């Protein structure tokens, strides 16, 4: 299982991820993503992979849901 995570240092708040993965990502009022750490599967996993590819600053990551990092 995988889940999405954002690197908040590289993220510049372009917001594409929220459009491509609305199942897990919302934007705050300043345009930065609020990510739901629930693992993604099925269609959501495909949306997640597309969002990761689309991120202009490569700030969105798909990682193993078992990773110790928060």
């Amino acid at each position, binding site marked *: 299982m995988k889940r999405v995570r954002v690197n*908040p*240092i590289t*993220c510049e708040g372009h917001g594409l991820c929220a459009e491509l993965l609305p199942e897990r990502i919302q934007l705050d009022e*300043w345009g930065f993503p609020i990510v739901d750490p629930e693992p993604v599967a099925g269609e959501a996993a495909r949306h997640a992979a597309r969002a990761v590819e689309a991120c202009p600053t490569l700030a969105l990551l798909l990682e193993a849901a078992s990773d*110790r990092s*928060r």
Partner: protein
Amino acid sequence: MTAMRATRAPELIGPGPPRLLAGVSSAGAPSTLDEHLSVYGQLPPAGAIDLPALVDASGLRGLGGAGFPTATKLRAVASQRGRPFVVANGAEGEPISGKDKVLVRYLPHLVLDGAAAAAHALGAREAIVALSRADRDGIDALSAAIAERGGGLDKRVRLRAVAVPDGFVAGEETALVQFLNRGVAKPTFTPPLPFERGVGKAPTLVQNVETLAQLALIARFGPVWFRAVGTADEPGSALVTISGAVAEPGVYEVALGTPLRELVAQAGGVTEHVRAFLVGGFFGSWLGEREAADASLLEGDLRSRGARLGARAIVVLPTSACGICETARAMRYLADSSAGQCGPCVYGLDAIARSFERLAAQQSRDERKQLSRWIQQVRGRGACRHPDGAAAFATSALKVFARESELHLRGRCEGKRRVLPIPGIAA
């Protein structure tokens, strides 16, 4: 277990004669190597003890604020490939804490012993003690102590003092490592954590200087001695910084589990009626005077009251000061202390600080709902824990000063005195 060496283990029974601070000279000067050895004795030779086992049995936890078990961290570094590196963290950025500065300034050799003992146990050849640039006394004391030892305890570990930029975030573990690597004192995205890849990409042990000083005593006197004070869950003694409305503000050594009111008594008692206590520094929480009345200096006890002990920095807020006004000043400082790297921290903390500033200025619009939402929203969204700490502090202010915020909304404030020391802003 190691046999006691020539020196008797320093004792501490309740608030009273110190243990860690036993070697502080009454003259107020840093202890020399001879003075240090006459109080604490020699460190046992590296091969004679199993340091991680002694630390494990002692139950020592990190004293920089996070409270992570020290033995676990030692073993995590030891389990990595490559020769480890040791960093003693004395870059105390918390404005209301002074305990690391006191420790380094008066007992530089105890800190160096701890860094050297950890380095020996891990097979590290170099240990750096990181201090804040503004801490001139600490840098002087430490540099003199290193010179006195001829660079290392037995020449196998090179000891070095490094001055790091001032500031709240510079002492964060990953910020410290990034500064040592490339001169940028800002947190990094993790993983990798320093224990995996730290200074010069080596597995790096970053430990608070007080933790290392305690470790140096555990190496000498063992876990049974360490556990002779404190509680079973939170053993040992620790340094506490107390300021605000007390007669004798300063750094005190107490057994963990000491009642808060005993610490206050030791600090000469209160000088005014008390409104609240700030416990755990600017990353900590406010505790109302009543909730704090029977509190003790234990992480477990304070957590059950919705607070945390953290790095044990305590401010006594008198009734002549207003909790909302003081929180607004501290929140502004925390927002301005952001490393400026993560959007949610940059914009979120600023919004929270502005909201508190409007409340403090008695603007009548009630925006507490939106404020609570922002506070919830910044948690966990920075590369480091800066927004989380600020959020915990803000949350406690809204809870403990609920009555004061109502008053502010009706155009009243109960106290104009400024108590919290905010760097760069006059009180």
